């Protein structure tokens, strides 16, 4: 366990050595909220009360999603740069290696999402300790699930990086557009709703909003959302553990 923590700490130190990404992430979050969020909430008006708050949570889901994508890219980048074979020679189990990657991902996600979350909750006067903790838990579980998907997809990069990047871009577009990240299920056309319930972001977004006290009539059942988010985190991490265990040996990124 000590070795796993050492490896995770090493990765996190590398992450913290360049804080530009964090400042940029927070600054862009603030810009989008101040301009896009405020103007769209004026345009939408009473058709969806408090759209500004709805959108701010959606934007946090995007930050979580992008952080999880980062972990996948980091994994592929390690393979591309030749660091992955080195990590595999370390006296650490494959599952321990995956746990260290997951810890790196969690640190990356929490550092990017916690300050905006606290700022939004403080400004909207919704800041409560239980709400914040449960919202962070929901975002953490969602982040783990998406990380699992991204690491599982990395086997594509072992065949061709370009195809991996294309799949990632296409998948991201579909998962975000066909979800309740920026609009609730209630306003979606009937023919899009069945696709929307297949996106893990739908459950993560609605669960976080429910914890933060958004009007439940626009959200999915929170119990269902919690079960799905947890199930996705467990299943995709198990899948990625299997991939790391069986497929990764001896591969190199094309």
């Amino acid at each position, binding site marked *: 366990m000590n070795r796993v923590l050492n490896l995770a700490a090493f990765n996190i130190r590398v992450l913290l050595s360049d804080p530009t990404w964090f400042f940029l992430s927070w600054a*862009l979050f603030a810009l*989008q909220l101040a301009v896009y969020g*405020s*103007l769209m909430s004026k345009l*939408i008006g009473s058709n969806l009360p408090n759209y500004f708050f709805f959108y701010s949570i959606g934007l946090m889901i995007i930050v979580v999603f992008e952080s999880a994508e980062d972990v996948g890219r980091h994994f592929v980048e390690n393979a591309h740069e030749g660091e992955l074979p080195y990590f595999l020679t370390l006296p650490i189990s494959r599952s321990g290696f995956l746990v260290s990657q997951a810890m790196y991902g969690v640190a990356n996600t929490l550092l990017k999402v916690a300050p905006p979350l606290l700022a939004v909750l403080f400004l909207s006067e919704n800041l409560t300790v239980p709400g914040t903790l449960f919202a962070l838990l929901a975002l953490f579980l969602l982040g783990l699930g998406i990380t699992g998907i991204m690491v599982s997809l990395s086997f594509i990069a072992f065949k061709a990086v370009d195809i991996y990047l294309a799949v990632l871009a296409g998948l991201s*577009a579909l998962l975000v557009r066909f979800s309740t990240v920026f609009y609730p299920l209630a306003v979606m056309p009937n023919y899009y709703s069945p696709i929307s319930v297949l996106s893990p972001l739908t459950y993560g977004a609605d669960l976080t909003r429910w914890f933060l006290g958004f009007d439940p009539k626009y959200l999915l059942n929170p119990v269902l959302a919690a079960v799905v988010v947890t199930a996705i985190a467990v299943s995709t991490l198990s899948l990625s553990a299997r991939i790391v265990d069986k497929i990764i040996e001896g591969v190199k990124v094309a």
Partner: protein
Amino acid sequence: MAVLISLSLSDMLVTALVLGRMISPEYFSFLVPGIVTVGLFTAATDTGRRIWLALREGVVQYYMTLPIRTSGLVVAYIISGGLGGVVYSSALLIIASFAVHPQNIFNAILLVPFMFVLATGLAGLAAFFASISRRGEIYWVYAQALQVSLITISTVFYSAKTIAQYLPGPIATIADYNPLSLAATALRESVFSGQLLNTVVLSNLLETSLPLAALGALAYWVILRTLRLRGKP
């Protein structure tokens, strides 16, 4: 190309459609030309990624052994960005015309050279950031900041009137002179509303795009020249 098209299509057929239901049916027609403009932006700024990769992977060293002058290499990159933007946005415009009926197709053809100039300007801006990105992944920091700020502070998603009504004056002015706003306005007015081409908008488009193209070309030329003289950027 297929991925880019699918991204823009999902913006048009999902995001615009749902936002149209939340705001008003007219909002869909308003947003579609904006999405075409964002598509042009995405395709043109891919030039920055290609330059960054060429510098990072050392492919640029190979380019410099080719029987072509440094300035020729620079112009080729900027023009390829411009052409990429025009080809991609034209394809999107054709697809968009099935969703929103264009009122004046002739104006769309007249706008192509202006879109080309805009795309070279955006390619130049991306080339500038790629050229000044000296360490690791910093190019992606610039690229993301460029994309979010240019698209957010523009009239792609909301009208100039809405911005002026709710946000401070300087932000409204930036949005007015943002090349993406000018292109979106030109498409909305001339192609989808059938009005005459607005020469003020078009001249503003040229005035904002050409300096960006020149800036990018200069930055890339300087980096290539340094590479030729010193052997490293």
